[in-house]
């Protein structure tokens, strides 16, 4: 087979020549501005790896230790940067190992392009070695996917993939490319995709809906904003702040909306949902107008729908028309991009302040503080709490760190107590609740934003689901700060067992390895803290480290996360103990 040797970038981008499909794949990625990809080689994707070797000065390939790690790293990359994350894998098991990350990206609207190798087209359907129907398997969890069997189809497929992943409500896409298409030569031309005939990424905003929304908001006595990731995805942080401030509306966030408005903002009244703050949950059922922006009324946010905000007029700003009236019936739906819609809304709003309404939030916060927060952050008991660890990280990072969490108790505590000064600072698996997300996502986040402090916070359970990615951290010299809050339990499940299954702790007790030794085995500086007096100094040492650092904190074994809206209960039945 003839090979084309490209000496430098200029030649690579200027000359249109006959190249192989595999080289075209790499050239397409370069044309899309991709500089880092995450993946794992294998038989059906080897021609692409051969080209990556050739183009290693232009694209940095990160060898993760498992394909799932590649997807979560690509997600972390996307979430902190707003760019498309890219993951690459071989056929069969390589491809199926991507699925958890793809499903996570789908439910959390994360732009990601996955490229998989596939057996040669003449073997499709023959149960060939490492053949799996990845297009069929990934269909329900991708925004779009396709299989390419001819080299000439590669540029258009990849261009379309990037366009679809990033535009409108973002999501993961998968392009499956047969090995013969990778080898085949063709005349390469790359054109970015700017439209797909059947696809309207951003619905047209009807100005009359914005006017109707403004009229309702201006007449409201107790307006309440609940925002989600849509604010971050459309980069509408400033517009949200302006609306909140001008109309004097208390605003609360879904877990994926965290950090869009600084934690310290006086009108930021906290997190919604099952383990959110007391006031925003309670007062959801007291507001007269509920203004949802870029959020989808997930069941973890709403609790029982039959008792959710029934007294309120509901306004929904949403880019995905299928989300309107899906869970909560709206009075006014404003379709469109959050940023553009809020810009239209702002001049129509009256300046307002609702001091008595704000006071209701403050009063309930005071109750939550006394019953929950005080003991979480300033414990009087002997055992270390997860909350005080987060508080220490807040103090020492001055609220500037990006917090990447896994799933479980530590996640809820981190999101409740982390201070966020900057947007795109909370990277977590919200919709899918993927244990094992945190560590690899932190790698992607750190590589996308090396100037930022990235702190990965996991529990002892989820950490061990993708612990192998310590190898990636070591090999890439990614200066991720890794905190494991170890309670020797699968804490959230144990909490439910305690509350709802008569303390029958079925398979939730963890007998753990020596985590410090494991981190040190990967040549990562490591330390374990068991006493309160050591905590501040250990966090300081971690923060001061220029390299990756592992900190295990032994926290109380049977701590619980409160407040809590029990599954299926109303948000106003939120429990403080």
């Amino acid at each position, binding site marked *: 087979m003839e090979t084309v040797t490209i000496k430098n970038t200029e030649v690579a981008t200027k000359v249109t020549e006959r190249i192989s499909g595999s080289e075209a794949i790499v050239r397409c990625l370069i044309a899309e501005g991709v500089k880092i990809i995450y993946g794992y080689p294998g038989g059906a994707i080897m021609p692409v790896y051969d080209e990556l070797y050739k183009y290693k000065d232009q694209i940095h390939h990160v060898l993760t230790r498992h394909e799932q790690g590649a997807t979560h790293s690509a997600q972390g990359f996307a979430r902190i940067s707003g760019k498309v994350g890219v993951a690459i894998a071989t056929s069969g098991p390589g491809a199926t190992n991507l699925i958890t990350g793809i499903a996570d990206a789908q439910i959390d609207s994360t732009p990601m392009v996955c490229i998989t190798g596939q057996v040669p087209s003449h073997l499709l359907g023959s149960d060939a070695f490492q053949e799996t129907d990845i297009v069929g398997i990934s269909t329900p969890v991708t925004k779009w996917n396709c299989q390419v069997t001819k080299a000439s189809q590669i540029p258009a497929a990849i261009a379309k993939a990037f366009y*679809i992943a990033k535009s409108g409500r973002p999501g993961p896409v998968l392009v499956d490319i047969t090995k013969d298409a990778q080898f085949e030569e063709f005349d390469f031309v790359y054109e970015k995709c700017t439209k797909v005939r059947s*696809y309207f990424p951003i619905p047209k905003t009807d100005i009359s809906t914005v006017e109707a929304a403004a009229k309702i908001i201006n007449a409201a006595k107790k307006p309440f904003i609940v925002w989600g990731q849509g604010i971050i995805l459309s980069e509408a942080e400033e517009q949200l702040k302006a609306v909140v401030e001008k109309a004097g509306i208390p605003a609360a966030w879904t877990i994926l909306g965290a950090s869009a408005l600084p934690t310290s903002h006086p009108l930021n009244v906290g997190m919604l949902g099952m383990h959110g703050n007391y006031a925003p949950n309670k007062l959801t059922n007291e507001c007269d107008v509920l203004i949802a922006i870029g959020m989808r009324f997930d069941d973890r946010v709403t609790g029982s729908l039959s008792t959710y905000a029934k007294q309120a007029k509901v306004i929904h700003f949403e880019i995905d*028309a*299928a989300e309107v009236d*899906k869970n909560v019936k709206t009075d006014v739906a404003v379709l469109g991009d959050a940023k553009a819609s809020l810009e239209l809304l702002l001049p129509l709003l009256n300046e307002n302040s609702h001091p008595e309404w704000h006071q209701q939030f403050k009063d309930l916060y005071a109750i939550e503080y006394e019953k929950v927060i005080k003991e979480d952050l300033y414990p009087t008991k002997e055992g270390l709490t997860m909350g005080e660890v987060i508080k220490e990280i807040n103090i020492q990072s001055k609220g500037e760190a990006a917090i990447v969490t896994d799933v479980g108790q530590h996640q809820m505590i981190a999101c409740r107590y982390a201070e966020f000064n900057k947007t795109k600072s909370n990277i977590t698996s919200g919709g899918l609740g993927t244990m094992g997300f945190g560590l690899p996502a932190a790698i992607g986040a750190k590589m996308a934003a090396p100037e930022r402090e990235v702190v990965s916070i996991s529990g002892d359970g989820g950490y061990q689901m993708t612990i192998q990615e310590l190898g990636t951290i070591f090999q890439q010299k990614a200066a991720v700060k890794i905190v494991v809050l170890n309670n020797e339990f699968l804490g959230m499940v144990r909490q439910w067992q305690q509350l709802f299954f008569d303390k029958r702790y079925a398979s939730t007790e963890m007998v753990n390895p020596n985590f410090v030794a494991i981190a040190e085995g990967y040549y990562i500086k490591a330390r374990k803290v068991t006493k309160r007096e050591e905590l501040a100094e250990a966090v300081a040492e971690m923060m001061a480290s220029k390299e990756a650092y592992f900190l295990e904190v032994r926290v109380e074994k049977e701590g619980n996360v409160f407040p809590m809206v029990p599954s299926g209960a109303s948000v106003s039945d939120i429990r403080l103990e």
Partner: protein
Amino acid sequence: MSTEKQLYTVSIYTENNIGLLNRISAIFQRRHINIESLNTSPSEIEGVSRFTIVVNMTEVNMKKIIGQIDKQVEVIKAFYHTDDETIYQQSCMFKFRSNLLFEERNIQNIIKDSNARIVTVNKEFFVIEKSGKKEEIDQLYDELSVFGIMQFTRSGRIAVTKDEMKITTLLESFNN
């Protein structure tokens, strides 16, 4: 909006794409909605396919499903209509032993009265075809079943709507 279940005809205009049937059927399957019948065909527009799917569900849920279908990248537009809003037909075929034609005089009357059509006759068997509403086909089946049906098959519903679909206008707006 009606909260009672009823039959809806879903019409979906799509790009012609290999994986799309899988993607669309998964939307129903995931929500435990049984597809009563499904038909895919070309549409009035070159290069655009049309799915006709019949489901039995509430209008509230129908609207949500249409939203989920409509947001698929390669779906141009999805609609739902009640029976009153569409002209619809199904087709069916019966295969019988040929001697019945001579031994059972009544069978010819049934064929004639039901507006069915004889497609082919040979020494061993003959085939009749009938298009119409499901009820008409069911009735014909009942009447013919006494003679011993060798084979029977019925197609999915195909339907056109009384209202205009305006797909061409929509496609033009995509292009601008």
